[in-house]
């Protein structure tokens, strides 16, 4: 009864400098819940975007009903029955529920759009989904769970064959999750396949039929859920040896430079307790959406927190803002360097000195010579490879861009650096250099809070490791206590519970 209707064969997707997917094969049967698993950056979302027509694969074939197809735009994907439900949802806030569900396929009558028909069909399909919302409510007033239902309703009405769900439960409570699972089960009965992307292992065992694990863009294996255990899946996901060299000299750590007590923010973080000491690298691990970046933003004053106590360099600080943070010696190296860290159109020189101009030139007039000398000093210190100080940063390689960010904070004499994904998007050689810099930085008696999704990096670089799960810190490991499996366990399940 379950036949394969969609098949991906040897899919390769290259992005400049990275191979996001490497020879991935995937078969999807009618009426099955196919779980897609993998660490951050394993290639899940790339695969999903290929299926939904956002990206074209570099090479490889997609067969639907044994016919070769090319999904070259999102509209075509929908026409052939693939409905993706992204976390960034495809809904229009100021249209009603019904209008959203029927967007692009409005029924007509003599007077224009047949709103009666829309309302009736909407009520019918929502009833089937067990939802009692009125069809004429504006979508902006709905909760996330209900917005999801709109997309599911749309998928049902367009007679979809494959519904792709990207972390559908990440914003849902327990009851809503249960409801969603019921709906998934009823979709299954109608022969609709579901490609389900999630990190929550309990869920996967509850709802999944098959699981495909991706790692570093490659297919690890596809197995039946019934035939595996949680620990097996975790090994499949991790299964990587630490082959990079982490040049870490460990020092005894000194007094606390950063301390958080019960810090909560309105929508993301709950009761964060954390400390960073002098001479320490503290690792922060968690899955996407666990709240790591939000925490970094709060520490750098980019976002406000509404509860809790923060102490930086021994001083209690009630309200943070970036200017104050830089002054007291904090530096943030954001995950998205291009958007939030560098001024891409400016020179290396200006980027290095941009957060220390006030300190170096208190009169307000910038001496170009002094600025160039200053920049040059840090270019050498951080080993930035650039033809001149006036090179525009955009034209440097990823590694040199990150080194420019480091130079910026060296120049501003920041003692506590927050690295958000320090080595994302840079090549292996530069990775080692960045790690060496981190090492040198703490050896001078400074400290680093490092957010990373790469387990080897977390394990190799950190003195202590905090694991975040759904906006909370669920575990603290001292160096040596942790291994890849135990970290993944806490990050995925939030506790040690294990079969």
């Amino acid at each position, binding site marked *: 009864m379950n036949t394969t209707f969609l098949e991906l064969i040897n899919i390769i997707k290259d992005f400049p400098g990275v191979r996001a997917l490497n020879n991935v094969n995937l078969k999807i049967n009618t009426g099955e819940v196919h779980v897609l698993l993998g660490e951050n950056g394993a290639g899940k979302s790339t695969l999903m975007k290929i299926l939904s027509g956002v990206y074209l694969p570099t090479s490889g074939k997609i067969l639907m009903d044994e016919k070769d197809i090319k999904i070259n735009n*999102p*509209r075509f994907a929908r026409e052939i029955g693939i409905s993706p439900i992204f976390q960034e949802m495809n809904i229009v*806030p100021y*249209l009603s529920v019904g209008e959203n569900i029927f967007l692009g396929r409005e029924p007509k009558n003599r007077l*224009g759009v047949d709103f009666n028909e829309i309302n009736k069909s909407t009520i019918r399909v929502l009833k089937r989904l067990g939802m009692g919302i009125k069809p004429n409510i504006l979508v902006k007033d709905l909760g996330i769970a209900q917005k999801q239902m709109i997309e599911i309703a749309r998928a049902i009405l367009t007679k979809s064959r494959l519904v792709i769900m990207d972390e559908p439960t990440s914003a849902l409570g327990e009851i809503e999750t249960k409801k969603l699972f019921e709906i998934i089960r009823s979709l299954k009965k109608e022969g609709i396949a579901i490609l389900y992307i999630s990190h929550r292992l309990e869920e996967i065992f509850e709802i999944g039929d098959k699981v495909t694990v991706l790692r570093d863009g490659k297919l690890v294996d596809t197995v039946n859920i019934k035939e595996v255990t949680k620990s097996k899946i975790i090994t499949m996901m991790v299964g990587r040896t630490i082959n990079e060299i982490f040049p870490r000299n460990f020092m005894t750590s000194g007094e606390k430079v950063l301390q958080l007590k019960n810090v909560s923010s*309105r929508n993301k973080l709950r009761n964060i307790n954390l400390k960073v000491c002098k001479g320490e690298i503290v690792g922060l691990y968690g899955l996407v959406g666990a709240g790591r970046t939000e925490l970094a933003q709060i520490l750098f004053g980019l976002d406000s927190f509404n509860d809790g106590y923060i102490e930086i360099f021994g001083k209690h600080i009630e309200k943070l803002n970036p200017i104050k943070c830089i002054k007291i010696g904090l530096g943030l190296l954001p995950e998205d360097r291009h958007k939030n860290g560098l001024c891409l159109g400016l020179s290396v020189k200006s980027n290095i000195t941009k957060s220390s101009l006030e300190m170096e030139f208190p009169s307000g007039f910038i001496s170009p010579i002094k600025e160039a000398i200053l920049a040059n000093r840090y270019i050498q210190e951080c080993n930035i490879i650039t033809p001149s100080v006036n090179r525009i940063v955009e034209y440097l390689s990823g590694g040199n861009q990150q080194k420019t960010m480091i130079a910026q904070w060296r120049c501003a004499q920041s003692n506590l650096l927050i690295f958000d994904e320090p080595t994302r998007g840079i090549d292996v050689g530069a990775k080692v250099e960045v790690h060496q810099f981190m090492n040198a930085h703490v050896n001078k008696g400074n400290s680093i809070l490092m957010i990373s999704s790469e387990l080897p990096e977390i394990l190799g670089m950190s003195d202590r490791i905090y694991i975040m799960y759904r906006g909370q810190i669920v575990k603290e490991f001292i160096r040596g206590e942790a291994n890849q499996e135990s970290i993944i366990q806490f990050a995925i399940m939030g506790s040690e519970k294990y079969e």
Partner: protein
Amino acid sequence: MNKNLLNISLPNIPEILYVLIFLLIILGIFIPEFRTIGNILNIAQQGAVLAIIALGSCIITIIGGIDLSLGAVLSLAGMFTALLLKENFNLIISLMGGIGCGLICGLITGIIIAYGNVPSFVATLGMMSMARGISLGLFDGATISGLPKYFRNFANGYIGVIPIPIVIVLICYVILEYLMKREKFGIYIYALGGNQNAARCCGINSKILTMIVYTIGGLLAGIAGIIMVSRLNCGHPTVGIGYEFEAIVAVVVGGTPLEGGWGSLGRTLIGVIIIGVLKNGLMLLGYPSYWQMAIIGVGVVLALIMANMAFIKSKEYINLQT
């Protein structure tokens, strides 16, 4: 708390209406001349041109665009109509000429924005300059006067007791409101402004839609231009300057956010009336028109700050809920 109570007891009345009513009461009490029927008709007649432009500006704003060329296109369409009349073309052809002129300007702007991927601000700035240049060039920068008498009656006449320009505004409003509320067109416009990605994924041709919206804007500017010429009884090449901004002000006062996604024609019209009433009141109080501009500017900025704060509050409220 108080506001919630108000919302429950008077559900579908937009807040902006309270502002208008408040203004009317205040002005009505303190300025006796304000209360006369003649004055009210005067306000309506003067507001008609702005109202028509603002309707166009409103739908352009809903899709997330902005049109700075409407005032210049209005002048150009007016000049063109005047020129045709002066050359003794018949009335219908002259009117069609004026409307067509606006429509073509809008169409060109729309094509540039939709297919040339030019930001609407830049594209319409270019169109503004072009239209203004042509309308000055058409008659060497001079006004075209000596138009036939029957044409003057067009904008100064009445149907029953209602001035003809008001009738035209109402017709435009009803047609557009029908399109926005009962036709696919309206749904697609909100979709395009609210989430372009979703619109595209649902099979909406965003390029054609964008083009149509700007064309409608141009067409309305053409109609407004004709009314203007008829009212003044001459074609004046720079008479429309500033109308595009007043239209945007009316749209924004009516609650439409400049980033698009939401907006209402009815509220925009209320915005137009508020501007008209304010101007009229200030004039009756004896402020010269320069000071009127300054005062209205301050008022609009204050209103926007207040609206913005309310918007942030509602956003936080949503965050709390989810």
